[in-house]
């Protein structure tokens, strides 16, 4: 084994690690390890000052391997690879050892044990680093074009944003018209324009931008190619037999939401006069002058909040999340109702009034205008009944109001509006085609809400708007433009680098059994006949551009002919040996 020059840095993480692991001892022990040239601790290895120190050490000690024992690789692998790269060390000769999530945080009750475990984890990291080889990322020329899926307000605005930065856009909308939910709303707060005018303005803007191509009644049915140069297939309803194939550099998913549809009987849903918020919006949109429902004048409205939201986990497929937009939307709708009839009696039956930020002003205004707010406890929800004769077709709402000493109050209402929230839109085919990560609540998941809030684990596939979680229109547009920014920041560079940690096949060992073919979820392994005879012997090759380095093919190979670069069987075995080896006390 050739002599290596490895630097090891053990992080205090403020106290996140050092409160439970004796990091000084870890550094001391590992410093005695063969091939370890430098072993240090630092208060925050990720701090700029320590990064600079590492760079200096890499140059001064001519390091050919770097190990940082700190937090999860999800957080800082890229940080320290960048350190290595800046100092002239191949970034793939860096190993991150997780002594926080996997050690200090897990063993807060056992400092000695945690310290011993940390030592072994670091030993394993050093063992792997010893075998690392320089890897060079594959470079792919990017296509300066983005596919946007979904023609709601988010997708439309993102399309314009991208076109204005000089990125071409292909926009795919499932429905006959673009416009989405906003186009169906009666009113919107924060806007002087009517929702339909907003959408018309966006359509007009798109029409004037030659860089934007819109396909309506269309769906994305396949995705091939690689990050930076995906080949997507779009099926358009008018011409289903001839799907369109287009190369794009990135994809923005802006497929939006669905509204919660109460079950019959849920808060009286099904009784005439019990409507969901979107249904009530339709009524409002169609009303001129005084508000009428089925020809009958409306004088009293009761709103019941949190229908289908903030549900208890005990219910099977509960919507445990808060739908965010509905409190404000309802308060605003009630203000619009006052425009039809300033004397309207409006009762709001709520749990917590979540008119966050500046929307609090709407809440204040609605109280001033005469909206009454009654607060119910989730374990004691209001009930809605059809009032018997002689009250005609009125509805009776019964509620225990916490704001008035928990008294039982009865409201006779003409309409009951169930404030229903957003739910994730079912989109099984798209999820499958794009391999979208679906979160617990059914919305799509970003990589990290703060570090990479619009990116998914699939490189170059981004999320925007309410497909991620409930948002207002303004928030969705901001997210759409943020996704446009992320897309442009990738495509404007002209090329992307693909992770070189991909699988390779040792053809000398391969017995052509073909087991690996079915193990690959990315269709990155191809088999080709060795001779002209299609039925003769075959060779198996891996497309480095499509391989994700997931390693799924490695264990299925019966002859150990496949390995992932950077995680070769030798490296893994060395890590296991490192973990098992007793810690050698320094001399």
């Amino acid at each position, binding site marked *: 084994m050739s002599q290596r020059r490895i630097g090891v840095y053990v992080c205090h993480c403020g106290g996140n690690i050092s409160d439970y692991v004796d990091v000084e001892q870890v550094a001391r022990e590992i410093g005695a390890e063969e091939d370890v040239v430098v072993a240090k601790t630092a208060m925050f290895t990720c701090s*700029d000052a320590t990064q600079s120190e590492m760079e200096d050490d890499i140059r001064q000690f001519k390091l050919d391997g770097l190990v940082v024992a700190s937090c999860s690789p999800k957080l800082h692998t890229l940080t320290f690879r960048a350190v290595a790269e800046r100092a002239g060390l191949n970034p793939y000769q860096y190993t991150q050892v997780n002594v926080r999530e996997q050690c200090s945080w897990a063993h807060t009750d056992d400092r000695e044990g945690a310290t011993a475990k940390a030592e072994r984890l670091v030993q394993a990291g050093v063992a792997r680093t010893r075998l690392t080889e320089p890897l060079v990322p594959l470079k792919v020329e990017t296509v300066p074009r983005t596919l946007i899926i979904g023609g709601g307000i988010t997708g439309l605005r993102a399309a314009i944003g991208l076109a204005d930065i000089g990125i071409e856009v292909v926009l795919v909308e499932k429905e006959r018209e673009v416009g989405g939910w906003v186009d169906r709303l009666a009113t919107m707060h924060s806007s002087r324009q009517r929702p339909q005018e907003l959408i018309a303005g966006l359509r007009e803007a798109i029409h004037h931008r030659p860089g934007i191509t819109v396909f309506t009644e269309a769906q994305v049915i396949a995705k091939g190619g690689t990050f930076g140069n995906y080949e997507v297939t779009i099926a358009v309803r008018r011409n289903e037999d001839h799907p369109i194939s287009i190369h794009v550099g990135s994809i923005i998913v802006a497929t939006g939401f669905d509204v919660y549809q109460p079950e019959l009987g849920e808060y009286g849903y099904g009784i005439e006069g019990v409507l969901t918020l979107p249904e009530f919006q339709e009524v409002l949109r169609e009303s001129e002058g005084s508000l009428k429902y089925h020809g009958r004048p409306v004088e009293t409205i009761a709103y019941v909040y949190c229908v289908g939201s*903030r549900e208890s986990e005990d219910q099977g497929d509960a919507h445990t999340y808060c739908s965010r937009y509905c409190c404000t939307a309802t308060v605003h709708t009630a203000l619009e109702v006052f425009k039809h009839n300033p004397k309207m009696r409006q009762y709001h039956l709520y749990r917590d009034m979540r008119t966050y930020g*500046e929307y609090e002003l709407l809440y204040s205004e609605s109280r001033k205008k005469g909206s009454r707010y009654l607060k119910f406890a989730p374990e004691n929800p209001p009930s809605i009944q059809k009032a018997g004769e002689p009250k005609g077709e009125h509805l009776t709402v019964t509620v225990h109001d916490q704001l008035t000493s928990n008294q039982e109050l009865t409201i006779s209402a003409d309409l009951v509006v169930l404030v229903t929230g957003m739910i994730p839109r079912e989109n099984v085919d798209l999820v499958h085609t794009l391999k979208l990560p679906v979160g617990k609540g059914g919305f799509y998941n970003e990589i990290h*809400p*703060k570090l990479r809030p619009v990116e998914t684990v699939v490189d170059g596939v981004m999320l925007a708007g309410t497909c991620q*979680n409930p948002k207002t229109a303004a928030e969705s547009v901001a997210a759409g*433009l943020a996704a446009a920014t992320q897309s442009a*920041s990738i495509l404007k560079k002209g090329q992307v680098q693909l992770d070189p940690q991909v699988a390779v096949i040792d053809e000398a060992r391969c017995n052509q059994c073909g087991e690996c073919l079915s193990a690959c979820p990315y269709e990155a392994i191809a088999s080709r006949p060795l001779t002209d005879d299609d039925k003769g012997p075959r060779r198996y090759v891996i497309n480095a551009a499509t391989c994700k380095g997931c390693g799924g093919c490695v264990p299925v190979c019966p002859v150990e002919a496949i390995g992932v670069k950077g995680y070769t069987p030798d490296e893994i075995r060395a890590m296991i040996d490192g973990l098992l080896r007793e810690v050698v006390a320094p001399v």
Partner: protein
Amino acid sequence: MEYDTLVIGSGISGMESAIKLGDMGYRVLLVEKEASIGGKMILLSKVFPTLDCASCISTPKMAAAIHHPNVTALTYAEVEKIRKLDGRFQVEVVKHPRFVDEAACTGCQQCETACTVSVPDQFNSDLVARHAAYIPFPQAVPKKAVLERAGTSPCTETCPAGVKAHGYVSLARSGEYEKAFQLVLQSTPLVGTLGRACFAPCESECSRGSLEGPVSIRRIKRYIADDHYDAHRRLQALPEITHTERVAIVGSGPAGLTAAWQLARKGYPVTIFEAEDQAGGALWTIPAYRLPSAVIGQDLDNLRQIGVSIRTNTPVHRIEDLFDQGFSAIVLAVGTTSPVQLLVAGAHASHVDNALHFLKAVKTGVGTRLEGMTVAVVGGGNVAIDSARSALRLGARVVRLISLESREAMPAFSWEVEEAEQEGVFVLNGWGVESIGESELHLMGCDATLDREGRFDPQYDRTRVQSVPADRVIVAAGMRPATEAWQSTLTLAGGGRIAVESESQATSWPGVFAAGDAVSGPTSIAEAAGAGKKAAEAVEAWLSASAFSPGPMRLPRVSQEEVLARQSQYALRPPRGGNKALVLHPHDFTEVEPALTESEVRDNSGRCLDCGVCSECQECVAACPADAIHLDAREERFETTVDSVIIATGFKLFAADRKPLYGFGRFKNVITGMQMDRLLAPTRPYHTVLRPGDGKVPESIAYIMCTGSRDQTVGNPLCSKICCMYSNKQNQLIMGALPLADVTVYDIDMRTTGKGYEEFYVQTRAMGTTFIKGRIAEIVEKDNGNLVVRYEDIDHGGQILEQEHDLVVLAVGVQPNHDVERFFEPGVLEFDDYAYVNEADEILSPGQTNVPGVYVAGTAAGAKDIPESILHAGSAVAQASAYIEGRRLPV
């Protein structure tokens, strides 16, 4: 350097904007007001709802921003003005001086350790102190030190001798008496003398003076001097003679001695010529009860140690003789040695003496006793007072002081006059001497001493006369320089004063300089010493043939209002120690002012308010291994032009003392949410969660939501969006840190609306936090520091209840940062009703302001949490780059 975009503010929104623009290939200028980028997020404990460590999320962004090839990050800098210019923007940036060379600083923190000034650490929400020399926080980017200097402290700024008064007080506070002595020596060798006989203008200017009384700055210096001299310490690191040009100093009073000292320190061979038989000049006229002779000797010994040669009994009659002897430059510092004579009958009688002669004779021990005599001292200045009080000590039965001036107009310090009276001197005001008889003095009334132009012109009223008995008369009617011998060779001003060019102290004779009272007429020791120092600098410039520039200019004096406004709380600390013990008819020349004890010195120096923040004690300069500290650094300004601007100036937290009901600032165990975040952070100040009042680990913690939000009484009807979630986060962290503590949250509505937030809230409840709907009516502090909270329990029928907690956390909300208002001319950039930057089209163009090309990112446009801020920044970036591209398109 040209930039495409200016990003103002480097919090999470600013960093995100800069990085993304940089990634897209635009060149970004990122300007940050603080000494590190990172904003508020880096100071947090963890971030909701993922409970990621805030550092771990921030540091990669900070590193990415600072290392980005397309991003130039300026810290400790501010945008002064932005002007629109043909669709582009002209930007004026001021880079504040760090007083630390960023390139040389290694971030080793030795300056921080050496610094003698402590101020509240804003990066720890004032829970602990930091030094004036500091690195903002452990993860700071760049990790470079900065010296906080608000200006020159009033004491230092006012000192005529240029002594860094704040510096030595600060060193004394740290027990570094010898270093303090050395610091005074940088200005003058007369440490002991000034410690006793200076009129201490520093104390008159002391900011503490407007509170319980000034810091006893002078007496601290006396302690420093005594500490050095009593230990018989020798001066260390004496300068070597590095120059061949010899300098002659004529006169050895405070001006001459200081000039000699300064030149010798610079490596010049210096010789002092003194006409009298001992060096010291006017110091020998200060009575020993104010300045013991031994102290003068100790101060003079400093000059001898440094190698200054003092030739006594060597009057200089002809200046050219000195040039002939090979001196290259000459400083005339002969003081005012000629007494002004009274022009009245009997003035030359044998029982009439002049005060200078009298005082010197007394001090050098050749004066006669005045046992049982009746003495009249003529004059109203400090010399007259010294004479009168000396006469008492020599046994005089009656001492009268005859002053032309009214009591108020007397030139002597009022406290001097009062002390003289306490010792038994009779002061007669408004009398002039008509004639001097053998045993009495004939006086006439004097109504005024100055004419309308303020010139000396006594108006006598000869109808008002009296005679007072006087066996001895001592005349203290003024002094003038004895320069008659030089009047043919030097240009003189009125009263025999030597005329000089005011900046450079140069006389009409090239190479001859003058300083002190010989130039200015009678002043004080400190002023003379200051003049001597200035003359030395002029001589050095002349000898090195360089243009004279007065030493490094001081920073402007810090205003007292600013200093007092900075003190959120001060303990009442009256001055302690050193009261003079005055007796009637004292019999000897023992010092009247006792020395401060060491404990009194510590106590007094501890009262210093550190007006200028940095005390200029020079400890950091000495400690820095990289010679990176440059106290003479000054701000730099530059202009650049950019295509677009992103404002990311963030928010301010609500100042909790604006809600007096909750007692923040009055009750020690009422803290803000940000303070709790610091207590929970990995870089936490106390290494655990404890309450600041007494360090007790809290067992029952209350959260008061909506502090400063949804509250018309403080003018903020808006919801701050973040407080519900940060409180939930802290609740969960507290349960980890203090598993036995009870946490109660008093809220109106729990607003947990973001992705995963509601689930987080449910989890907080499940972990044991009690949520009570109800606003707080009152908080009362108990003697043990616990707090009784009175509230309406809405959930349970709206009863009014009380609950005792040992720590109350105020969930303070978001307020606009008004810094942004001065970037543009008034009216250019629009703000909303609550002073946030207005978004012209909130729905379709989030982040677009009313000015095309100017965008707002993050909380500068209103409350947002971190994920929202990041997305908002992305939105601003998309539009900023569209604007840049639009401008570049061929029309």
